[in-house]
C-alpha cells in the first residue's frame, strides 16, 4: 500500500483536521445562543478551516504523482477497510476551492437567511466536512459515505430555506442524485469482491476483464453524469438552483458539480481505462450536446438564476469534453475549468442573491438599469460575466482554451462543434449584462422619476466579491502555478489510462458484445427456473 502514498510529514494531521474542525464547530454551534454569535462563530470556523488548508498548497510536492499528506488508520478490519485520506494534484485544488468558498457562503447568508439561523449554520458546517471528505477519501467506501452523506445537509438547505417550490426541487435533487449513485455502491462492492480491497490506488493497479470494466464504468458514469450534470440528466439542476438559497446555489455550483468531474477522473478513467476508451465517442457527443443545449436554454431564460444554472450545464459540458479527450490539454483544461467555474459561477450566484435581497425578484426585467444606481455592483457583474463567457485575460479563457486546444489536437471536428457553445455563452451573458446594467437607460441617473432606492454593495459584500475577483485575474493572467501543481498527477493519470487500454485492444473486437452476452446469460438463468 505504501508505494502509492507519502505519509503526512507535517506535525499535525492536516486532512483529518479539515474534517474534524467543521464537525466540532457544528456541534458547538448547536449549543450557542444568539443569531449574531452563530454567524460569527460559523464564519470563524470556516475561516480556520481555510487557514488549516493553506499548507496543502505551500507544502505540496509537485514532483510526484503519489498521494500526499496521507493518514492511515485501521477502521473496519473485518472487511479490510481502513480510514485512509490523502490528496494528489487533482484533489488538492478542489479541497482548497471548498475551504475557500465556504467562508463566502457564510458571508452571503448573513442577511439572506432570516429563519432558523442556528440550524442553517450547523448544516453548512456539516456540509463543508462532507464535501472535503469526498475529495480527500482514498478509499471507495469512505468516498461513498461522504458522497451520500452530503445529500442530507444539501437536501435540508434546499428544503428548509429554499424558495416557493422548495419541496419539489429538494426531493427531485435528492432522488435524482441518490438513484444515480446507488449503483456506485454496487460497483464498489463488485470491485471489492473482485480484488479484495477498497483502496483506490490498488484498484487502479488491477486489471479487469473488459465486460466487467463496462459494467463498472456504466454504473459509476451514471452517478457522476447526474451529479455533473450531463445533458439528459441535467433537469434537476435548474430546479435545485432556482429554489436553493444563495449559499446553497453557491455550494451547488462551486463544489457539488465538481464532484462529478472528480469522480470521472478518480474512478472511471484509471480503474476502467478500456471501457473509458470504448465509451469516449458517446461521452464526447453527450458533452457537445450539453454545451450547445445548455447555452441555448440559457439564452431563453428570463429568470437570472435559471440562466446561470443552464450556463452551468454548458460549462460542465466543457469539463466532460476535456476529460474524455484523454490528452494532457483536455484534462488540464477540464481541471482548470472546474476551478474557474467554481470561482466565477459562485460569484455570479452571490451577485444574484445580493440583488434578490434588495428587489425580491430574480426576473431580469425587474432588475434592469442598475448601472447608475449600483456602480460597484455592476462593475463586479461585468467582471464575472466576462469571466463566464471566457473573455481573454480572465480565468475561464485559459480553461476553455486548453480544452479546445486539446480537442483540435485530437478530434478537430469535436473542437469545431464546441465553438458555437462558446459563442452562445457570449450571447446570453452579454444579453444579461446589457439588460441589467443599461437596458434603455440614457446614461443619467434620474433621482427624481426613478424612485428606486437600491443600496449598493456594502463592505461585507464587497469583500466577498473582491476576493473572488483576485482569482479571476490571477488565473486568467498567470495560470502556471495551478497548472504546475496538477502537471505530474495528470501525466500519471494519462499514463494509467493508456497502459490500461493497450491490452484489451486485442480482446475488444472479440468481446464487443460482451455486455449483451452477459445479459443473455442472466436472462437464460432466470428463465430456466
Amino acid at each position, binding site marked *: 500500500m505504501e508505494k502509492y502514498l507519502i505519509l503526512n510529514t507535517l506535525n499535525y494531521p492536516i486532512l483529518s483536521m479539515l474534517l474534524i474542525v467543521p464537525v466540532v464547530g457544528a456541534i458547538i454551534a448547536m449549543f450557542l445562543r444568539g443569531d449574531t454569535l452563530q454567524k460569527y462563530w460559523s464564519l470563524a470556523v470556516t475561516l480556520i478551516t481555510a487557514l488549516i488548508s493553506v499548507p496543502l498548497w505551500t507544502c505540496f510536492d509537485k514532483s510526484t504523482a503519489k498521494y500526499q499528506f496521507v493518514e492511515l488508520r485501521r*477502521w*473496519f*478490519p*473485518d*472487511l479490510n477497510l481502513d480510514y485512509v485520506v490523502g490528496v494528489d494534484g487533482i484533489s488538492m485544488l478542489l479541497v482548497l476551492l471548498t475551504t475557500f468558498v465556504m467562508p463566502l457562503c457564510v458571508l452571503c447568508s448573513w442577511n439572506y437567511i432570516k429563519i432558523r439561523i442556528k*440550524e442553517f449554520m450547523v448544516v453548512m458546517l456539516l456540509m463543508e466536512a462532507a464535501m472535503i471528505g469526498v475529495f480527500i477519501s482514498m478509499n471507495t*467506501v469512505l468516498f*461513498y*459515505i*461522504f458522497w*451520500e*452523506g452530503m*445529500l*442530507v445537509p444539501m*437536501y*435540508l438547505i434546499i*428544503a*428548509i430555506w429554499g424558495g416557493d417550490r*422548495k*419541496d419539489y426541487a*429538494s*426531493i427531485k435533487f*435528492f*432522488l435524482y442524485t*441518490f*438513484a444515480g449513485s*446507488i*449503483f456506485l*455502491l*454496487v460497483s464498489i*462492492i*463488485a470491485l*471489492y*469482491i473482485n480484488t479484495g480491497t477498497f483502496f483506490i490506488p490498488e484498484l487502479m493497479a488491477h486489471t479487469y476483464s473488459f465486460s466487467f470494466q463496462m459494467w463498472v464504468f456504466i454504473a459509476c458514469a451514471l452517478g457522476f453524469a447526474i451529479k455533473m450534470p450531463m445533458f439528459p440528466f441535467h433537469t434537476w439542476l435548474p430546479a435545485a438552483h432556482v429554489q436553493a438559497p444563495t449559499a446553497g446555489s453557491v455550494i451547488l455550483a462551486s463544489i457539488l458539480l465538481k464532484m462529478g468531474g472528480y469522480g470521472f477522473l478518480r474512478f472511471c478513467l484509471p480503474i476502467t481505462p478500456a471501457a473509458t476508451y470504448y465509451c469516449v465517442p458517446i461521452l464526447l457527443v453527450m458533452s457537445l450536446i450539453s454545451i450547445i443545449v445548455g447555452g441555448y436554454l440559457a439564452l431563453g431564460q428570463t429568470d437570472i438564476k435559471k440562466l446561470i444554472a443552464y450556463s452551468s450545464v454548458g460549462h460542465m459540458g466543457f469539463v466532460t469534453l476535456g476529460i474524455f479527450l484523454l490528452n494532457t490539454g483536455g484534462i488540464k483544461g477540464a481541471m482548470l475549468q472546474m476551478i474557474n467555474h467554481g470561482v466565477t459561477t459562485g460569484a455570479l450566484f452571490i451577485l444574484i442573491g445580493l440583488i434578490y435581497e434588495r428587489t425580491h425578484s430574480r426576473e431580469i426585467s425587474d432588475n434592469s438599469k442598475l448601472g447608475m444606481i449600483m456602480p460597484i455592483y455592476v462593475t463586479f457583474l461585468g467582471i464575472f460575466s466576462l469571466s463566464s463567457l471566457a473573455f481573454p485575460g480572465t480565468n475561464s479563457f485559459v480553461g476553455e482554451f486548453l480544452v479546445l486546444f486539446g480537442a483540435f489536437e485530437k478530434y478537430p471536428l469535436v473542437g469545431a462543434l464546441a465553438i458555437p457553445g462558446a459563442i452562445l455563452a457570449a450571447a446570453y451573458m452579454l444579453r444579461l449584462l446589457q439588460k441589467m446594467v443599461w437596458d434603455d437607460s440614457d446614461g443619467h441617473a434620474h433621482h427624481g422619476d426613478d424612485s428606486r432606492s437600491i443600496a449598493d454593495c456594502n463592505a461585507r459584500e464587497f469583500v466577498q466579491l473582491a476576493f473572488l475577483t483576485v482569482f479571476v485575474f490571477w488565473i486568467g493572467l498567470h495560470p502556471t502555478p495551478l497548472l504546475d501543481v496538477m502537471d505530474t498527477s495528470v501525466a500519471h493519470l494519462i499514463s494509467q489510462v493508456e497502459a490500461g487500454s493497450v491490452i484489451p485492444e486485442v480482446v475488444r473486437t472479440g468481446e464487443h458484445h460482451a455486455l449483451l452476452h452477459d445479459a443473455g446469460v*442472466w436472462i437464460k438463468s*432466470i428463465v430456466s*427456473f
Partner: protein
Amino acid sequence: MLNTVFLPEMALMFMVLVMFFMTLGNLRTGVIQGVTLAMSAVVLVVAFASYGANGLLFYDAYQVDMLSQLFKIIILSGLFLIYALGRGLVGIEPKLHAEYNMFLGISALGLVFLSSSVELLAILLSLEISSYALYVVIPFRQGQGRMSAEACIKYIMFGAIATGLTLYGMGYIFGLAHTTYLNELAVVIPSLVATQPLGVIAMVLVLICFLYKLAMFPMHFWTPDVYQGAANETTSIIATLPKVGAVLLLLRLVAVAGADITQYTWVLATFAVMSMTFGNLTALVQTDLKRLLAYSSIAHAGYVMLGIMTADLLGMAAAVFYIIGYLLMNLGCFYVIYNVAPEGQNVTFDDLKGLSRRSPLLAMTLLVAAFGMAGIPPTIGFVGKFVVFTGAINKGFYALVIIGVINAAIAMFYYLKMARAAYCGADDEKDPILMPIGSKALGVFFILAIILIGVLPQEFMAAAKEAVALLL
C-alpha cells in the same frame, strides 16, 4: 452449571413473577414503570454477564452459545428500550398497565427461550409462548375498540395459520429424517433437499411461521392492519422483538438446509425480492406513519433475507448486523411516534408538521432514524445494507443486489417524506412538546447509537461473525 448458563432466563422469569404480583395490587403507573424498568435493566446486565457461556440443557434441546447469548442481549436490550420509551403507557387501558408489562415480559421470555432452542418442538413451544403473550396485549389499547379488536383477530388468525403450516412442515421433516434435533437434521437435510422435492417443500413450510413473524412475503398481509390497530407501545414491540427472534431461527434453519441448494435459494430469493418490492411500492402512498413503517418493515425483511440466504459467514453476520440496526432505527421512529401522540392516537404526516419547532430533539431523532433506514451514510442502516450487499455479491447474487439498490432508491422517497414532514410546513404553531429529562436522554441515545455504530461498526460485526460461525 445450570445457574450460570440459565441465569438470564431465571432473571427474566423472576421479573415476570414480580410483575405478576404487581398485577394483584393497585399501583400507580409511575411505580409500575419504575420497577419494570429497573428490573429489566438488571436482566439486561445479567444477559451481558452470561455472554460467552456455553452449555446444553434439557436433553440437548436447549443450547447456550455465543449466538443465542448475542440474540438474548439484543432482545433484552430491545425490551429495556421499549419499556423506557413507553414511559407513561398512554395508549393502554389504565387499569391494565401492570398486566401489560407482564405480558411484554412473557413475550420476551418466549423469545429468549427461542434463541436457545435447537429442537423443533422446543422451538415451537417457545415461539407460541412469545406469540400468545402478544395476542393478549393488542386489545389492551385504550379507546380504539374496533380497530384494536380487528388487529388482534388478524394477528391471531394469521399466527394460527402460520403455526399450522410450520407444524405441517415439521411433520414432513420428522417423517423424512426421523429426528427433531437441528444438529442431526443438518447432517441429513442437505442431501434430502437436493434430491427430494418434498425436502424443499418441508423446509419452506417450516419457515412459514418465522416469515410471518418477520412480516415477509408471503406472510406479510397482517402487518399494516396490526401496526395500525395496536397501541403505539404495542406496535413498537411487535415491530421489533419477534423479528429479531425470527431472524435467528431463519439463520438456524437455512444453515440446516445447507449452503448450495439451488431450488431452496431460489424460493428464498423470490420471497426476498417480492418482499422488498411490494413493501416499498405500497409504502409510497401511506399517510399513517405506523402503516408506513409496517410496509417499510416488509421491505426490510427482504434485505435481511438477502443476507440470510447466502448461508455463509459474511452474509449471515451481515443479517445479524442488519437486524440490530433495524431494531435501533425502528425503535427510534416509535420513540418519536409515542412522544408526538400524547393520547396514544395514531400519527399521520399532518401531525408531524412543524415538529422541528415543537421539539428539535424529536425531529432530529426522526431525521436520523429515517435516513438510517434509507441507508444513507454514516448511519448503522448504511453499514447494514453495505455488508448485506457485500455478502450477496460475494455469493454472486448480482441481480438480487441490483434489485435491492433500485428498491433502496424507491424507499428513499418515503423516508424523505418523513424527514420533510418533520422539518417543513406548519403554518399553525402548535405547542412545544415537553419531555422529561429521561425521555430526552433516550432520544439522544437513539441518535448517537444510530450514527456511532454506523461510524464504528467493527466490534458489532466481529461479534456477529463470531456468533454465526457456530452455525456453519
